[in-house]
């Protein structure tokens, strides 16, 4: 018995010591994965370009705020996290960060003082950044950008999520190997894979999360990668597999949506509008082609959707039959003007509703929000027009939105579950995402 108690005591002591060590012994930083030449200099323009590749503005610029001065609230399942100021201001930004400090933030999720960043910062993905890209980002944020003094709000999550030390354990589970090695032999495909998995951090939204909120897969070799996730209640559609939102899209279709936010099938919505606005529209043609090629590759085993034929829904809408149900009637009275009775809209202008990943998403949040509050495409060099869909909150009751959304989810060849008025009510007072 005594021996047992002694053993318990020893284990407890070891446990406490381990916990203290776990909490207080600094985490080892991951060193540079590639040794660059001593006289390596970041090519002209590469800093800003890599910033675009990694879409740093998405989180680090507040609405109406100075670019990269932080303070943007990011809603997470754990609570609201405020992004940090990443301008080179020594007091409130990263002015005192060395390259090693900066690298640790990107690949290990560590602040300069050694404390953990919340993984709203996608260091699971940035961990794959090449050393060249890390150097480019450092050059841009530390050396090129003007410092902006902007103290950002402290992120104050409730217990236990405010125990940042616990992220050390999370990181053990979440993080893959540092650096990036493609499994693809084709150089363009490999470039596309790198951009998607690393700097583009597409998986942060489009890959499902594990029960402890890690990305379920970090590379394309795993079928879970880009198989669909969620962001702020909106479904981030699957980009591969049987439910892929881009099934049947050509490389040109995919290139166009990244360059302009719109293509023959779809128009980006929700957070993806910001990704186009701040990031992908600035990608080089080579990189857009590489990404498009890689995403086509990910979908290469999938059957393209059948060619559209006249559906019963289209026939009903075209009949203008006064005895039609409320759902199709609401469609004619609110949607048909742009999306037409065949639900196919018009290339690059009015998105398709038949087969739309937004319409048929598991979560109807995005669809309801779009009906209530509308959406706007960003202006890009290739397609400068800020096409906007107006919201219909003032025109449709909760019941009517639910009836309309349910009709859309079942109309034409769509087959998704109904929407309730309560679903709508919860979203009515939320502002549009943009």
């Amino acid at each position, binding site marked *: 018995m005594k021996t047992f108690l002694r053993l318990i005591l020893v284990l407890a002591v070891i446990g406490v010591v381990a916990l203290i060590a776990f909490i207080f012994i600094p985490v080892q930083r991951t060193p540079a994965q590639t040794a660059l030449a001593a006289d390596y200099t970041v090519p002209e323009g590469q800093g800003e370009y890599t910033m675009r590749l990694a879409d740093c503005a998405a989180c680090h610029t507040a609405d109406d705020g100075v670019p990269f001065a932080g303070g943007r609230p990011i809603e997470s399942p754990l609570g609201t996290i405020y992004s940090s100021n990443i301008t080179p201001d020594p007091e409130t930004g990263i002015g005192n960060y060395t390259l090693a400090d900066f690298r640790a933030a990107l690949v290990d999720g560590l602040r300069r003082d050694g404390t953990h960043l919340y993984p709203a910062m996608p260091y699971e993905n940035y961990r794959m950044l090449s050393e060249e890209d890390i150097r480019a980002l450092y050059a841009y944020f530390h050396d090129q950008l003007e410092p902006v003094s902007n103290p950002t709000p402290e992120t104050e999550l409730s217990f236990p999520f405010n125990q940042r030390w616990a992220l050390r354990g999370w990181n053990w589970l979440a993080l893959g190997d540092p650096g990036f090695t493609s499994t693809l032999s084709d150089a363009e495909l490999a470039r596309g894979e790198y951009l998607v998995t690393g700097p583009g951090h597409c998986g942060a939204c489009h890959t499902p999360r594990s029960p402890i909120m890690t990305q379920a897969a970090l590379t394309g070799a795993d079928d879970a990668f880009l198989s669909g996730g969620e962001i702020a209640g909106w479904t981030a559609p699957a980009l591969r597999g049987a439910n892929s939102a881009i099934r049947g899209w050509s490389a040109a279709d995919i290139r166009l949506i990244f360059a302009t936010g719109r293509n023959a099938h779809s128009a980006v919505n929700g957070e993806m509008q910001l990704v186009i606005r701040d990031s992908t529209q600035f990608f080089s043609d080579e990189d857009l082609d590489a990404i498009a090629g890689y995403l086509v590759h990910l979908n290469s085993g999938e059957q393209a959707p059948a060619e559209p034929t006249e559906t019963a829904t289209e026939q009903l809408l075209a009949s203008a039959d006064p005895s039609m149900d409320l759902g199709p009637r609401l469609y004619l*009275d609110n949607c048909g003007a742009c999306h037409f009775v065949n639900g196919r809209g018009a290339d690059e202008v009015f998105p398709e509703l038949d087969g739309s990943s937004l319409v048929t998403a598991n979560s109807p949040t995005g669809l309801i929000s779009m009906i209530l509050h509308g959406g706007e495409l960003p202006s890009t060099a290739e397609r400068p027009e800020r096409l906007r869909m107006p919201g219909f909150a003032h*025109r449709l009751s909760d019941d009517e939105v639910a009836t309309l959304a349910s009709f859309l989810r079942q109309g034409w060849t769509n087959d998704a579950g109904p929407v309730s008025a309560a679903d709508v009510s919860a979203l009515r007072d939320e502002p549009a995402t943009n």
Partner: protein
Amino acid sequence: MHARAQAAREVPLDQYQPEYLTAAEYAFIMAATDRIIPEDGEGPGALETRVPVFIDRQLAGDFGTAADLYMEGPFTPTADPFLGTQTPLTPAEIYRGGIAAFDAWCAQTHNASFADLDAETQDAAITALSEGDVPLGPELREFWSLLLQNTREGYFSDPQYGGNAGMASWVYIGFPGARGSFFEWVGRPEAYPLGPVNIAGERA
């Protein structure tokens, strides 16, 4: 929401409190619009569609106050009508003066104000007004054309302006309102069957 349900919630016409018109003027508008678009025969009349409410609100607003019109003098109300309105009066003032002058003419000619005449005599009085046989003076000479035009506006405009209650005039003639989606109906030879929707999204 169904438009008839919405219309039923409105204050009855005879209890409506006008914003611009006096009680006597409102009684005139009720009576006159009822003759311009009467209830009898097919289709709704001006009262069923609440045209008097529309006219009162228009006169109380930018239309009545000539907010958009060029109202600098000198004014030559006797100018050739082909040169357009030249009265110094606003539309609201034309109604005020026009109703008073027309009612005075009715009193002199038919021994009662317009609202108190029987329908047949009212029609005769309106005929005289419309044919320029009621002496109004040049500053008021647009009174009839305004009254006729505003009555039609109240009958046919979107219900948000107070008239066209229940979109009844649109239902009557077969105008589908604020739908804006007819691609598949262009060149189709049969009558379009679906009822109207208004800007607020109500259906009839």
